[in-house]
């Protein structure tokens, strides 16, 4: 699709976004109780597992992963999955799927999972060209097995290198960054699709950290194990207001040696984590990685000098992005 044609197609999406904030936002209300951030007593995080799902980096059967995703969504929202997708996303939305592809095949968001999400969105009435699979650069996407796609009537797939960054600087706390125009100008809604993995500097990379791929200068924000920068990035209004769902690929997570792919430290967890509370999901992911590290006689992340305290910061009174209080996180195992 040519750039001009694409923008033309977004005119409807812009008005649709207005609906999300005002009229359509009423439908979203029904989904809010999955997060403490919205005042609910518990945040819900689905941990959905299917044995034998993964075989190293070989493809996973899309049907199986699609079924697992549907069960996760139904458990999280206590409704039929199709109904949930239709409530979460309007046909005039432009939905950005923020994948995590820097590590290449083996430790990037699996294509099969992304395909399953696309299929659910299509079933919910979103047109193909209104779905954008994206990350920082085409090169990162291709390295992880994605094909760059900008043709009309196709699910779009491209990096911010194609869309560019805003000229405006978005600021919160210690962060001042230009945002991917995919977030600000192209999309009206975002599904965050991170990978569960260890991170050599900030300790852990799950949902919150994935949005470092949406700013122009992530290299400036790794000091002090990413605290408070990761939390601050997630406070930037376009990210915070447009992210409606986080689906974490925990099929073959990595508990040490990240963010690059180190197969010796991955394990077949065969799971998805799904939530609307990114902080709660990160906390659950943190617990999982710590447990795996203990099993394999590695020090804790704190012991390794990279405790991901940015998760605590994201939950504090200044940020209120969600809860990290385990007593307020309801982990729903499927």
């Amino acid at each position, binding site marked *: 699709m040519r750039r001009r044609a694409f923008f033309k197609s977004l005119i409807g999406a812009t008005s649709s976004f207005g609906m999300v904030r005002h009229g359509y936002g009423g439908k979203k209300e029904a989904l809010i109780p999955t997060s403490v951030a919205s005042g609910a007593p518990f945040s819900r995080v689905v941990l959905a597992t299917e044995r034998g799902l993964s075989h190293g980096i070989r493809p996973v059967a899309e049907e199986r992963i699609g079924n697992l995703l549907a069960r996760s969504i139904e458990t999280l929202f206590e409704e039929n999955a199709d109904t949930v997708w239709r409530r979460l996303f309007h046909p005039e939305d432009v939905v950005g799927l923020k994948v995590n592809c820097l590590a290449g095949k083996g430790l990037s968001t699996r294509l099969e999972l992304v395909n399953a999400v696309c299929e659910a969105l299509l079933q919910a009435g979103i047109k193909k060209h209104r779905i954008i699979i994206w990350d920082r650069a085409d090169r990162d996407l291709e390295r992880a097995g994605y094909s760059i796609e900008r043709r009309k009537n196709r699910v779009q797939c491209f990096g911010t290198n194609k869309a560019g960054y805003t000229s405006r600087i978005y600021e919160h706390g210690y962060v001042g960054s230009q945002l991917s125009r995919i977030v600000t100008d192209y999309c009206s809604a975002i599904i965050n699709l991170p990978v569960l993995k260890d991170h050599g500097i900030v300790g852990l990379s799950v949902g919150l950290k994935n949005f470092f791929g949406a700013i*122009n200068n992530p*290299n400036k924000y790794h*000091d002090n194990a990413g605290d408070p920068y990761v939390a601050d990035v997630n406070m930037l209004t376009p990210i915070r207001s447009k992210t409606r769902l986080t689906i974490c690929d925990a099929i073959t997570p990595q508990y040490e040696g990240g*963010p*690059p792919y180190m197969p010796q430290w991955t394990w077949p967890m065969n799971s998805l984590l799904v939530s609307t509370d990114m902080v709660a999901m990160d906390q659950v992911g943190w617990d999982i990685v710590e447990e795996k590290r203990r099993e394999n006689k590695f020090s804790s992340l704190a012991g390794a000098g990279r405790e991901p305290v940015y998760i605590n910061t994201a939950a504090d009174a200044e940020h209120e992005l969600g809860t990290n209080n385990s007593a307020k996180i309801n982990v729903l195992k499927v």
Partner: protein
Amino acid sequence: MDRRTFIKISSCSAAGYCLLRDGKVLAGDDGVAPARYYEKLPYRKIKCTLCPRECVIDDLERGYCGVRENRGGTYYTLVHGNPCSAHIDPIEKKPLFHFLPGTLAFSIATVGCNVFCKFCQNWQISQARPEQVKSMKMSPEKVAKVAVERNCPSVAYTYTEPVVFTEYMYDTARACRDRNIKSVMISNGYIQKEPMKDLCTVLNAVKIDLKAFTRRFYKELVAGELKPVLDTLILLRQQNMWTEIVYLIIPGQNDDPGELEKLSKWIVEELGPDTPLHFSRFYPQYRLKNLPATPISTLETARKIALDNGLKYVYIGNVPGHAAENTYCPSCQRLLVKRTGYRIIENAIQNNRCSYCSATIAGVW
């Protein structure tokens, strides 16, 4: 790329003279060259030893500067021969007031910086990554050739932070030396000892932006540390490198008279009273738009403090037409170099001496 396009993308120097027609837009992996100054670590990690940050970088990741990348355990610069800005400026614009006054400097920069100043003037290129800004291809030899062709006796590495393109700067300075062109580095001084010593073998002058004289300021507004910058200044003195200092005064942040007195005393004691000190006026920009411009009276007070503490050459910058733009003989107090903006109106220094009283005037004239 034509000249018009370049002007559109270039963010530096209204007075500058665009030279992109000598280059071209780059794509892909142009500019990638092996980096110097790093250590290999287990599991394809590396530790960068170029600047005091000593970033430990995983495979496929970059350091704080955003222009040096680990690829499979080998470290690369992404900007060698890949400037994003190229202009011809008066040397006074750097500012260097005691180095070949009235001459032109062919001035180049790549993207990237190893600090994160909230008051950065060139943030569009200094805080960017190579793939976010259009650049040109210009080898070290080409830079030297252009400098000769354009009658520039010096090349300035400036606008962003040249420390992060140290390999390109070093190779270019060597190529310039072969053509009798001098090299000047306009830097924050946030660099380790070994690479700075290597650069001293090919540079002829350095200007350091000493951003404050407190750790607090460096931590909160620069995302860096003060001490390594002071260490660099001392090293430059030990290496007999001609060095001038710029101190941008930001209201309420680094304008305390006590701080300025400590700064002045430190310069006199550690670098010598002949070190030129430029107090520069701040204008609100980037992430400090909430602060006012520096009152001229503050700059004048700062200058008085520095002179009272023994510094001989203290200037006020970013205030066109101010009398403190000029150089005065520290011995007879006569006006020696009269400046208006970046222009030299008159110069009464002859053979490194005051033409009135014959006192030696420090500098490279």
